[in-house]
């Protein structure tokens, strides 16, 4: 029981200080291997990243659940998740109340006039990272220096086919994800 409380507090702190999404929690989790070596070690964290990236859900939540599970079983996983999301929920509810009250004020509207295009710029930057990893082979390119090695041709062709399918048929994203999982098993990109 005391351990579960400790876990909630420890992950509450991580949720409070990790700004910028799931990957921002990673350095804090590495810190845990130093401050609480009896809880989790570095090689377990490597498994954690691999599994969290290959399961659905937010990366930060998956990692917290995994670590909690290692430390104290299923209840530990629930405790770390609650701890991690609690600061988010509290802070966002406060911000949302503030926004609701002032959303018609010209100041807030002017501020968001600048923030909205920045928000899409940040999303584009995140998309760029994902695209770089999925469609380009930078390690191979830096080894051979040949531009034909820079792009994963098979992946790009499949990506274009997917995009045309999305624009044309406008189906739910999960359908395309399922198709991609099957095609990945046939072709192995």
């Amino acid at each position, binding site marked *: 029981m005391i351990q579960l409380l400790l876990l909630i507090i420890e992950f509450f702190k991580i*949720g*409070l200080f990790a*700004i*910028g*999404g*799931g990957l921002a929690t990673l350095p804090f989790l590495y810190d845990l291997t130093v401050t609480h070596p009896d809880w989790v070690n570095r090689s377990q964290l490597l498994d954690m990243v*691999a599994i*969290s*990236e290959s*399961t*659905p*859900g*937010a990366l*930060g939540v*998956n990692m917290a*659940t*995994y670590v909690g599970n290692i430390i104290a079983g*299923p209840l530990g*996983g*629930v405790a770390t998740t609650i701890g*991690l*999301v609690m*600061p*988010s*929920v509290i802070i*966002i*509810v406060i911000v*949302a109340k503030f926004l609701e009250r002032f959303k018609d004020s010209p100041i807030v509207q*002017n501020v*968001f*006039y*600048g*923030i*909205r*295009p*920045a*928000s*899409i710029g*940040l999303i*584009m*930057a*995140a*998309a*760029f990272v*994902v*695209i770089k*990893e*999925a*469609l380009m082979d930078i390690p191979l390119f830096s080894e051979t220096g040949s531009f034909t090695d820079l792009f994963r041709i098979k992946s790009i062709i499949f990506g274009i086919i*997917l*995009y045309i399918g999305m624009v044309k048929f406008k189906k739910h994203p*999960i359908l*395309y*994800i399922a198709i*991609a*999982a099957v095609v*990945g*098993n046939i072709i*192995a*990109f």
Partner: protein
Amino acid sequence: MKELLELYWVFCKMGAVCFGGGYAMLPIIQAEIVDKRGWATSEEIMDYYAIGQCTPGVIAVNTSTFIGNKRAGIPGAIAATAGFVTPSVIIIMIISSLLKNFAHITYVERAFSGIRICVAVLIINATVKLWKSAVKDKIGLVICLGVFLLSAFTPLSPVIFVVLSGFAGYFICKWKGASE
């Protein structure tokens, strides 16, 4: 109560199919929340993402909390967030106790070689759709491309960009108002 259960269930489904974290959630939010249910507009989603990136915590959770709160206040925020994390908790629990080498199973590795491409394309598609509601004039275009380039090629934190562009928006509007 029915509304809370509905929020929980919708976000639970989203959590189960959202591969690749907060940004990968964007196309799914667009399909489920904006297009299908009309619970939020594209503009609101952009605002939530901007705020979610400069407030602490996981972006997907911040966004879920925002939408839940808009629908049904604090209980709604909790229901949406609880729904979103439920699949994660269950799936990770099963995998971490039964399939420690899950990520290295050939089928899983191959499936993800395809899913990664799909997620990249889904995010591109979502960005194209959001573009219209976020970038409305030349100033918006400059801010958007500037933030994209700086964020993609420098290690600066998103917080800086959001705060600076907020100030920029404020002063540009003030200046425009004064000149009119």
